[in-house]
């Protein structure tokens, strides 16, 4: 008997005992749903927590500050900064050449006088940092977008503002969306001395607010394209005293954000950057600790799901054993017609696999639905708290693993009933006589 014939026969048997088959499939489906939902939620929670720790950027991100580094501080995630050590283009090139570095994003900063021309209510102009980064690779930035999007480079200036900016203009975080599309203005100042008097001359920039981000970035409250900030910085630096009194740092770059090839490379890359001469910080230790903790949680949740699956497997074994008892004559007839022990075993194993497959598919689908439902509830809470929401991605690997796992488990559970059926004597065919 071919596998196809065994499948047809098993399928007919399942259909004939529809009630019992449905109950068995339902038990498997419930277990599979539980497993899928738990793993999908655990996986999302892990991603969310790690993203929070890495500020939305890659887990392998390293912050480099314009301060002298000390190799003795490498064991600390956020060491104390040493004396000022400016970062220039040559330093960037040296860091880019380090083995294990995937990308280096430069950060520039300028002091700016910030106003909000369309301000509908309270809040006063203030002086704050304007931070510029390379917006060509937004996925590498350690920034969590609460509303809207990150600014784009090129074209009319766009800006993303921080929660600090909202606070200064009396906008509640829960109403962050209301500032999208409004205008923000700032001026970088140049100190001029014509021999008679010293005065500050401002260069004004008007930009559209396109996003609200969760963190204050580089001690600034606005994030925009690096070119915009570089213009402002140059303007300030072209004044008296090289712009020192206007807050221009001797360091061309306010910092770097270095992305290592992988989390396991972070330590080596940090050491190499320290050798170049800069202080680095990365949440590698806390990430590792949290990751280990989350793994334990994931294992526990998987174990809960696995126990449910084991119970379901026992259900399959029980249902098939009952079927073997009921179908003694039928099995005898199969043998009388010429079925070998292997043929009979195959029919029951295929039947077990079919029950596991059906239950696994149904359970994985329901589990995905449950995970999304839980995600919705969690998101309502997070949104209410003004926090970034989570996205429960389609857990393709988890679902495929669940379906495969339930099918294999069902086959294992069906082994004993199948062996018992195969051992039944052909003379049982006479049982109905």
């Amino acid at each position: 008997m071919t596998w196809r014939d065994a499948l047809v026969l098993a399928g007919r048997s399942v259909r004939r005992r529809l009630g019992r088959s449905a109950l068995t499939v339902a038990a498997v489906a419930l277990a599979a749903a539980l497993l899928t939902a738990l793993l999908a939620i655990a996986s999302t929670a892990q991603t969310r927590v790690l993203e929070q720790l890495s500020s939305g950027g890659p887990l392998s991100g390293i912050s480099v500050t314009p301060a002298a580094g000390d190799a003795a501080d490498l064991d600390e995630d956020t060491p104390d900064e040493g004396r000022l050590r400016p970062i220039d283009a040559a330093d960037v090139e040296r860091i880019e050449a380090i083995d294990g570095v995937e990308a280096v994003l430069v950060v520039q900063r300028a002091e700016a006088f910030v106003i909000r021309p369309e301000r509908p209510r309270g809040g006063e102009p203030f002086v704050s940092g304007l931070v510029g980064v390379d917006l060509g690779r937004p996925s590498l930035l350690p920034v969590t977008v609460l509303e809207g999007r990150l600014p784009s480079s090129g074209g009319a200036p766009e800006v993303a503002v921080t929660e600090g900016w909202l606070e200064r203009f009396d906008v509640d975080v829960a109403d962050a969306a209301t500032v999208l599309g409004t205008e923000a203005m700032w001026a970088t100042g140049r100190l001029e001395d014509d021999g008679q008097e010293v005065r500050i001359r401002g260069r004004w920039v008007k930009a559209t607010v396109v996003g609200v981000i969760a963190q204050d970035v580089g001690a600034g409250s606005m994030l925009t394209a690096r070119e915009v900030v570089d213009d402002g910085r140059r303007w300030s630096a072209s004044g008296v005293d090289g712009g020192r009194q206007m807050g221009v740092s001797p360091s061309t770059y306010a910092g770097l954000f270095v992305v290592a090839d992988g989390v396991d490379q972070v330590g080596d890359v940090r050491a190499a950057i320290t050798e170049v001469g800069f202080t680095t910080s990365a949440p590698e230790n806390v990430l590792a600790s949290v990751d280990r903790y989350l793994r334990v949680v994931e294992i526990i949740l998987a174990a809960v799901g696995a126990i449910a699956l084991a119970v379901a497997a026992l259900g399959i074994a029980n249902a098939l054993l009952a079927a073997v008892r009921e179908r003694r004559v039928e099995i005898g007839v199969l043998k009388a017609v010429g079925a070998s022990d292997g043929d009979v075993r195959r029919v029951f194993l295929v039947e077990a696999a079919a029950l596991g497959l059906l239950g696994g598919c149904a359970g994985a689908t329901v589990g995905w639905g449950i995970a999304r439902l839980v995600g919705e509830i969690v998101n309502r809470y997070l949104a209410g708290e003004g926090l970034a929401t989570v996205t429960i991605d389609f857990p393709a690997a988890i679902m495929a693993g669940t379906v495969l796992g339930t099918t294999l488990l069902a086959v294992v559970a069906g082994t004993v009933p199948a062996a018992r059926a195969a051992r039944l004597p052909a003379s049982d065919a006479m049982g109905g006589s």
Partner: protein
Amino acid sequence: MRSGPEALVGEAGTGLRDAGATIEVRGLSHEYPTALGPLPVLDEVDLSVPAGGRVSLTGRSGSGKSTLLTLLGGLRPVQRGTVEVDGVDVAGLDAEGLAAYRRRTVGFVFQHFGLLEALTAAENVELAGALSGTRPRQRKARAAELLEAVGLAERAGHRVHQLSGGERQRVGVARALFNRPRVLLADEPTGNLDGESSAAVLALLEGVSASDRLTVVLVTHDPAVAGRAPRRYHLDGGRARAIPIQ
């Protein structure tokens, strides 16, 4: 398409390969283990059936008729004695050999029909082909041919519960003949049928036997049915006694 018993054995049925087999049973004994000790059922049974012969086995309930049939058909291991079918000792076959023997050499017709309820009439007939490795297309054609021959072409797609007792038994006969067996073993084939259906099934079996010299062993407790066989054995006290034809 041909119909009637001659169609049952098909084209290959006219050749020597498909002619009935001789059956030689010598010193066959069988007992069942019970809590009170072994229960002997057959005791030194001797029996001969020539190739293409038609034999009826009679005896009261518990006389060992069905046990003898299962031993002839390789459904049960031989404990003592020999069962030779065309010179091949069935007792010497291993599990795979017995399965092949049941698949190719014998065809069974059961009192309870032995049909799989989950399948249609045609699928039940095809089942024998699935087990013998017949390709699906040939399998379907052969099943259609056999169902036509037993007068059930219109009922091919019907499930077992939709068939009458007589129709079920005719499907059982069609399935038994699917692989062109050389021996047909029938256990009370008319035991659950009314008079008209019984006559139809018996005519079918006799036709098959006559058309291709198929060896038929038929167990029955109905003297009228037994009397239609040219050779009769009666089981009593564990022994088989040949009954002379009147």
